[in-house]
């Protein structure tokens, strides 16, 4: 007997009512932000809940005055570099830990895993000095290099690599398929779904970084969208609609990314849910 859990009658009305109330509560901050960003400055404080006037000028002003285009570009450059490198370095190191023989393998693996326990908040303080002494303040290198490798990605991919039978690797090497060939033909295709999830995870994590860019950016040209929003907030509180327009513009690209990659989203977010 199949259990039909589709609610009927008054139960379904109660459920709809709850769904609608929750949807309104969750959408409320987004709604007020959109309403404010579409109102001219002199109208924004009156009837903040009612879209009684409409202009696209504020969005335009936020784009030009706030230099949001530049910030978005910086964020995209950094996030793409970080994601690409994290995928490559994770594949390489996970492969080494899974299929290569070398001395002190356990020791090196322990080093990788130990880094998982260290939160950014502890290291950024010193990393700022390092980046400063390398002359990398206000540069893409400064924003990206500390995050080019990830023990988390290594661990995740190694979990999948370890499921590949060792015989397969040995058979491949007898057939003259070296490690590079085996990696390209067998290992990487097998982890492709995991790579998608890891890639999205890395991209979001990099894009959403807030503390680091605010620490090493002093020139306006090198702000990411997150540190740029901070700048917008500190300069223009007398123009709240401008800040709200900036917020909308900042949110749109990531919304597009999530819609395009929604198949990877759940796996990307749960990537950390390592099976016990």
């Amino acid at each position, binding site marked *: 007997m199949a259990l039909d859990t589709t609610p009927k009658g008054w139960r379904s009305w109660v459920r709809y009512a709850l769904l609608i109330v929750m949807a309104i509560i969750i959408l409320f901050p987004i709604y007020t932000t959109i309403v404010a960003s579409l109102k001219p400055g002199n109208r924004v404080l009156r009837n903040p809940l009612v879209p009684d006037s409409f202009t696209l000028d504020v969005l335009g002003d936020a784009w030009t005055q706030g230099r949001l285009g530049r910030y978005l570009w910086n964020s995209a450059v950094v996030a793409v570099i970080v994601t690409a490198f994290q995928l490559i370095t994770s594949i390489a190191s996970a492969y080494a830990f899974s299929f290569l023989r070398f001395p002190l393998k356990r020791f090196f693996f322990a080093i990788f895993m130990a880094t998982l326990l260290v939160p950014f*908040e502890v290291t950024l303080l010193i990393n700022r000095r390092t980046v400063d002494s390398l002359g990398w303040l206000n540069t893409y290198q400064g924003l990206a290099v500390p995050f080019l490798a990830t023990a988390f990605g290594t661990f995740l991919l190694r979990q999948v690599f370890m499921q590949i039978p060792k015989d397969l690797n040995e058979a491949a090497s007898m057939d003259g398929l070296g490690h590079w060939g085996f990696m390209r033909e067998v290992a990487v295709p097998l982890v492709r779904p995991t790579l998608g999830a890891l890639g999205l995870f890395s991209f979001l994590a990099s894009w959403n970084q807030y503390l680091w860019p605010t620490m090493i950016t002093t020139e306006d040209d090198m702000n990411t969208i997150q540190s740029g929003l901070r700048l917008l907030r500190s300069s223009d509180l007398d123009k709240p609609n401008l800040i709200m327009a900036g917020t909308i513009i900042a949110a749109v690209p990531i919304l597009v990314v999530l819609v395009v990659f929604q198949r990877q989203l*759940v796996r990307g977010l749960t990537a950390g849910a390592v099976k*016990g």
Partner: protein
Amino acid sequence: MSGATKRRWRDVPLAAVMLGPSLVVLVAFVLYPLGRAVWLGQQRCNVQATKCRSVGWGQYTDVLMSNEFQSAVWVTVKFALITVPVGLALGIGLAVLADKHMRHIGFFRTVFSSTVATSVAVASLMWLFLLQPSVGVLANIGWLNDIFPVIKEPGLLNDKGTALSSVAISSIWANLGFTFIIITAGLQGIPRELQESAFVDGAGGWRRFTNVTLPLLGPTLLFTTVVLTSRAFQAYGEIDLLTNGGPVPQQSTTTVTYLIYGSSSIIKSNEGLKAAVAVLLFVILLGLSALQFRGLGKRVHYGS
């Protein structure tokens, strides 16, 4: 050279090429800074942090005993005690509410997931515009101010009683999309037959939820709890944008992370103290994750 030794060393050059880049980055930007922070934590520096000299490991004890540090830890714990249970409960509630075959359910799922697209800066600015006492939305709704005068004077973010909860609400909202998506995925992983057999055994909706759904959600809920707790302990952006650690003089929203990095933190120009606080935060987080996995791990059903 024997065959076995040869095989043992054959892969070394390739391993070096493959591990090298990761190893360099992880050592230079994770392990070295950790060690350096531990060392810096017992030093006192000039304001430019160009010259530092050791003042002894007692500096860690001094920090640990200081009112500023203890207050920051307490604020952080309160923040976690608000955001984690409320966020989790709302996430479970929404996921269960939307886990039915109904018309337009896809629309509601999209809405409930939507805040996953907001970064901490985006979410905080949206809430700043709601809560700010002069230009904020709530402050410009007349009847609301008559009931809750605190909204306008001094403002929810400026009152020592409401500031932390206000930041917490913004944070819960921002994390809700994530929580909803994860728990919904967890619900969909529960085998239908289990629900059905419980139904056949005469279990009502609520008992099916507490006896079947909730235990089987264990691993998902553990994961969500761990993520939400670590996010609470590392909360920075929302505090930087909404309250700057204030209101002063109580520093009601100065969390440990804000104490280290905040632009109006009391130790902002003392690198040695900042490092000491950072190391202590590391120890706290380490203890916390050990605790979570031991305590919660026992009560979790991993299924088969």
